[in-house]
């Protein structure tokens, strides 16, 4: 038996502190402690965007099975993102979204805009409690703020158990309101990017002619219906249908599309424009199966919307526990989507200007896959530590647009590699 001074248990100290505030006796309070989860994650694309995200989440169960859950998320984004223009066999110059300066792109390179350095803070709260016999209700809110973006949302849902809790039906609704206020304002859709010299005294006037507003907003309503069914002692299945409708500004104010001549040479860059309505339907199915010691988590999601994007997501995880309480969990995810009907990698100069167009590969035809591994270990006293390492690969694809002239010599659909590293400590 080791003779070690017992380290003060943070969870117990926090509980005693909050118990003192509530004026309850120590023995009663001992049952209701906070459960904390903290994590730090780093996402890094080769030569592109990097993000670091930190989360602190606390959950407390009260006397009559009510649960309060609070979460604080902070993330910071750096690096460069594609601006939507195509690569060219010659160097290119673009104006920064703020209008404060220009940046150059080398011949043959996919144009990347590195102006994005942003920090975001998000607060989430959720309250869940039983209501009458067999009903559970939950309400929550979410607030997120970064330099040029704000999002606020409310959600509520009710679940009802049947058949000795073998079947559960649930229905939920959420409403979100987002505001974007980009530095440099909202660009006039499909107008030409003013690629002049920011130091020129006339530049600001010319730049402002391409702006129509300082901010824009959008509203989202989500509905979710689900059924969970226990199949047997080892297996549970869930099926969900979700409906989502978005109304408002969904254009990316930082993205452009190259307008090219018959030889594929860029003549101008036009600001993209997306519809102001989007309706999505998603069907999701998941199963968890407990083998002799391993646990399989397999899910599939099909999404279809009125932008003509269809997607399929397959996700598999297999948890392998060891006798010492450690575990390893391999993970594999496969994703494929079809292009939005207004997606084009570029516009031909003499083509009739469409109402809506975007060259953002993230709404183009795209295949991605993720392979990863998670390793976890208990640290005693109910504390846990885990590590996650994942590799994420994106393959943007040709949606059928014929490359013309010099565009045949450049990479129009550049693949993206990213690494995800995460450490989680729960106590």
């Amino acid at each position, binding site marked *: 038996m080791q003779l070690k001074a017992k380290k003060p248990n943070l969870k117990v100290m926090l509980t005693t502190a909050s118990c003192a505030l509530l004026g309850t006796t120590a*023995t009663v309070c001992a*049952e209701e402690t906070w459960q904390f989860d903290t994590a730090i994650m780093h996402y890094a694309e080769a030569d592109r965007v990097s993000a670091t995200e930190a989360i602190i989440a606390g959950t407390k169960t009260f*006397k*009559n*099975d009510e649960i309060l859950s609070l979460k604080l998320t902070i993330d910071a984004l750096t690096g460069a993102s594609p601006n939507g223009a195509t690569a060219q066999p010659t160097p290119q110059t673009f104006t920064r979204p703020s209008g404060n300066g220009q940046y150059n792109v080398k011949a043959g390179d996919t144009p990347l805009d590195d102006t994005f350095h942003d920090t975001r803070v998000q607060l989430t709260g959720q309250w869940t409690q039983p209501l009458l016999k067999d009903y559970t209700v939950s309400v929550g809110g979410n607030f997120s703020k970064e330099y040029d973006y704000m999002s606020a949302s409310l959600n509520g849902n009710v679940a009802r158990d049947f058949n*000795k*809790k073998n079947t559960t039906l649930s229905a939920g609704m959420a409403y979100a309101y987002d505001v974007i206020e980009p530095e440099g304002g909202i660009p006039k859709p499909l107008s030409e990017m003013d690629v002049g010299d920011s130091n020129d005294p006339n530049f600001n006037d010319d730049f402002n002619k391409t702006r129509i507003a300082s901010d824009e907003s959008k509203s989202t309503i989500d509905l979710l219906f689900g059924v969970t069914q226990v199949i047997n002692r080892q297996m549970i299945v869930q099926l969900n249908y979700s409906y989502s409708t978005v109304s408002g500004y969904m254009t990316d104010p930082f993205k452009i599309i190259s307008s090219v001549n018959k030889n594929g040479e860029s003549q101008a860059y036009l600001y993209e424009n997306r519809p102001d309505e989007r309706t999505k339907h998603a069907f999701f199915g998941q199963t968890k199966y407990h083998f002799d010691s391993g646990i399989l988590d397999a899910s599939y999601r099909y999404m279809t919307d009125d932008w003509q994007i269809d997607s399929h997501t397959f996700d598999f995880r297999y948890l392998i526990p060891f006798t010492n309480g450690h575990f390893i969990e391999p993970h594999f995810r496969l994703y494929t989507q079809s292009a939005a009907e207004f997606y084009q990698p570029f516009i031909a100069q003499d083509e009739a200007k469409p109402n809506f167009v975007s060259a953002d590969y993230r709404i183009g035809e795209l295949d991605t896959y993720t392979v990863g591994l998670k390793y976890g270990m208990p640290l005693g006293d109910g504390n846990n530590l885990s590590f996650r390492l994942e590799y994420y690969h994106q393959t943007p694809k040709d949606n059928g647009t014929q490359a013309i002239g010099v565009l045949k010599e450049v990479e129009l659909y550049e693949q993206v590699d990213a690494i995800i590293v995460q450490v989680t400590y729960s106590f």
Partner: protein
Amino acid sequence: MKTIAIVMTALILFITHAQAKDSTSLQYKDVIKQYKGDVIYLDFWASWCTPCRKSFPWMNKIQQKYADKNFKVISVNLDAEPNLAKQFLASTPANFTILYDPDGSLAEELQLKGMPSSFIINAEGKIVSAHVGFTDKKKVNYEQEIEQLL
């Protein structure tokens, strides 16, 4: 002594893994026969059931409080592996009678609707009420019902 222990363990293992119900399964009438004349709080629990953990201190309290009034707390463990029950009892001690029903035969006989489940039985051996669940609110009701019978 060692041989007897091994034989007993083998016998217990054989019984708990038997597919068919046999005469060593717990049956309600046998349990009640033993305690006729007492008001009984019959509780069903398992090591994996969190509200069960919360109910133990209260069951200890009422067993002590009404011990001299012909009252008995009988709790039935439904773990398929008796080891898990023992681990639970090591961290959450019980000062009342514990019976083991690893094949769930008594649970099935009484048609439990949830976990934990409890039955309040009067001195004549008749089930007066059946309850599911344990919360701070519920325990007050249970205690009131017991007091009424004593």
